[in-house]
């Protein structure tokens, strides 16, 4: 095959997220093989390729070898695709090559698939199609015994689609998630562009991924990307590592709700930053997020809270205890609380629904309480992808996000959550229990504040009926972060202070 020096044009599929990992879409005017095991959403992909096209004003032809058009019309309705209506409008045509119940099929002598090709060509002309889906090849190989003939004929069909300038998707089944691209040697005639859909079982959890194996002569994102299939939408690919770090960064500061904490952060949180609040249970994380949202409400900013650990009533009752009226904020349209159990859906679906809520409510502040609850329901990889996806999305919206994370131990320690996400958050605030002469106190420190100076002290943190209060630094105790407390004599503190001259050199910005 001659190498085409010109840039290969793309056809944006309209499948959310897919065009991103495909660097713009499927190669235009070519046929892409979409291969996957049973239940890997091949038919959904093939249908959505056409449905998204119809929604973009392009007509499509669906060649079905397996399911009847009636079944497809019915099954795809759940994704919001009214195929019957599109057929009436002449924007969708079926070529029904599914097994017919009434006719017994016998083979006597040589044959070809000219009739199928003629029907496809006819349907393409009739609706003026630019897109064709064929689903799925295994079915036709099963019915017509001579695989060599079928292979040759399919090659003829693919060639013909190409000469008509059509962009096509052909699905094929594979028996294993890893190994041959497809059965029956389909890769022999569709070799240029291959997409693989996987439905993996990892740690007893189902995880769907899509991988672009190759686009000949052109670029695409490498590796598997998680996707989910959701009612009303179909396939939604989560582009994760393909996400570009191109969000604008703002110097505008917003208040955390605590003037003292704002001071510790060098003047408040940045407007489009992600703040991680980590602490053991009961150290005041929920209070921190409540204060953060109440502070927004005071300035007329909307906040959206995703709570995965407590019910609405519990949250409202807690807030009242700290002098914050959630109900009033909700009535004023300044707050929306979304509570659900993370166990209900997978993280991919959770991400999509969080994104939808954010786009609908358009808040200035988003709080997630807590991320650790989500960590429970996923694999580590899936969780990391979720956090990256969410963080990137929030930053693109130019809003502030506050995540809470629960440490597994009461004293000191870090959680898996932190280990995986600390590098992608802009600020980290630690809340820790401090044992002080036989009494439990709370301590707070700003561990990281990207792009700004911040207070390095560990300060006492107290909670009462008016909310949170930040007091003096713990000067005579060390080992708070590790949970191995050591009390330091005042004379030693004096000596150390003199050694480092900390007071003369306050608030150096971090790199």
């Amino acid at each position, binding site marked *: 095959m001659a190498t085409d020096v010109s840039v290969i044009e793309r056809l944006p599929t309209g499948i959310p997220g897919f065009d991103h990992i495909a660097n713009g879409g499927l190669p235009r005017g070519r046929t892409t093989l979409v291969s996957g095991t049973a239940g890997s959403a091949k038919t959904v992909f093939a249908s959505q390729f056409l449905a998204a096209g119809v929604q973009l004003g392009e007509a499509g032809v669906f060649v079905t070898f397996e399911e009847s058009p009636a079944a497809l019309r019915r099954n795809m309705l759940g994704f919001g695709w009214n195929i019957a209506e599109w057929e009436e409008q002449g924007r969708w045509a079926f070529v029904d090559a599914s097994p017919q119940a009434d006719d017994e099929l016998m083979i006597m002598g040589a*044959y070809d*698939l000219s*009739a199928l090709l003629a029907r496809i060509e006819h349907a393409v002309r009739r609706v003026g199609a630019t897109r064709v889906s064929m689903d799925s090849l295994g079915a*036709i190989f099963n019915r*017509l015994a001579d695989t060599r003939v079928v292979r040759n004929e399919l090659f003829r069909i693919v060639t013909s689609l190409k000469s008509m300038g059509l962009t096509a998707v052909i699905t094929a089944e594979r028996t294993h998630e890893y190994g041959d691209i497809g059965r029956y040697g389909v890769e022999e005639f569709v070799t240029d562009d291959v997409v693989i859909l996987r439905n993996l079982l990892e740690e007893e959890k189902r995880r769907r991924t899509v991988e672009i194996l190759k686009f000949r002569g052109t670029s695409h994102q490498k590796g598997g990307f998680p996707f989910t299939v959701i009612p009303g939408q179909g396939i939604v690919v989560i582009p994760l590592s393909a996400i570009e770090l191109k969000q604008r960064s703002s110097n505008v500061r917003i208040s955390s709700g605590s003037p003292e904490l704002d001071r510790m952060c060098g003047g408040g949180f940045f407007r489009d930053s992600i703040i991680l609040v980590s602490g053991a249970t009961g150290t005041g994380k929920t209070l921190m997020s409540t204060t953060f949202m109440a502070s927004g409400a005071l300035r007329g900013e909307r906040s959206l809270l995703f709570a995965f650990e407590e019910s609405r009533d519990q949250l409202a009752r807690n807030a009242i205890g700290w002098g914050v009226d959630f109900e009033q904020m909700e009535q004023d349209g300044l707050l929306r609380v979304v509570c659900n159990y993370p166990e209900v859906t997978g993280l991919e679906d959770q991400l999509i629904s969080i994104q939808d809520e954010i786009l609908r409510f358009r808040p200035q502040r988003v709080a997630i309480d807590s991320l650790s609850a989500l960590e429970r329901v996923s694999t580590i990889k899936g969780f990391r992808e979720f956090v990256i996806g969410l963080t990137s999305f929030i930053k693109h919206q130019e809003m502030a996000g506050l995540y809470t994370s629960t440490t597994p131990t009461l004293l000191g320690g870090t959680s898996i959550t932190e280990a995986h996400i600390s590098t992608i958050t802009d600020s980290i605030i630690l809340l820790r229990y401090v044992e002080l002469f036989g009494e439990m106190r709370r301590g707070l420190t700003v561990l990281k504040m990207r792009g700004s100076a911040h207070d390095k002290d560990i300060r006492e943190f107290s909670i009462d009926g008016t909310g949170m209060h930040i007091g003096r630094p713990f000067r005579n105790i060390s080992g708070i972060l590790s949970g191995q407390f050591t009390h330091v004599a005042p004379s030693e503190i004096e000596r150390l202070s003199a050694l480092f001259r900390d007071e003369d050199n306050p608030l150096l910005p971090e790199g």
Partner: protein
Amino acid sequence: MNGPAPSKIVLHLYVAGRSPRAERAIATLRRLCERELARYECDLVIIDVLADPQQAEARKILATPTLIKEFPEPPRRIIGDLGVPPEELLAALNLPYDGL
């Protein structure tokens, strides 16, 4: 063959243009109508899917040549250029073989 012999037989042959395969199938069927099925009123219709893809769509034809015995019921569908002995073909079509 069950029941009384039919008086009329309707055969539809779907071909793609005038390919050697199509010619072979047509010749076989013509011969069949003239010889083995001479007693019957034999209605052989040739449909070119290239000229008339709608008919192929309506009958959901995949391969060419495809022969459909439309009458008597039930329909029978045979794919291929019919390069088999007449008695085999008649059996496949569920039609009586009278011999010569």
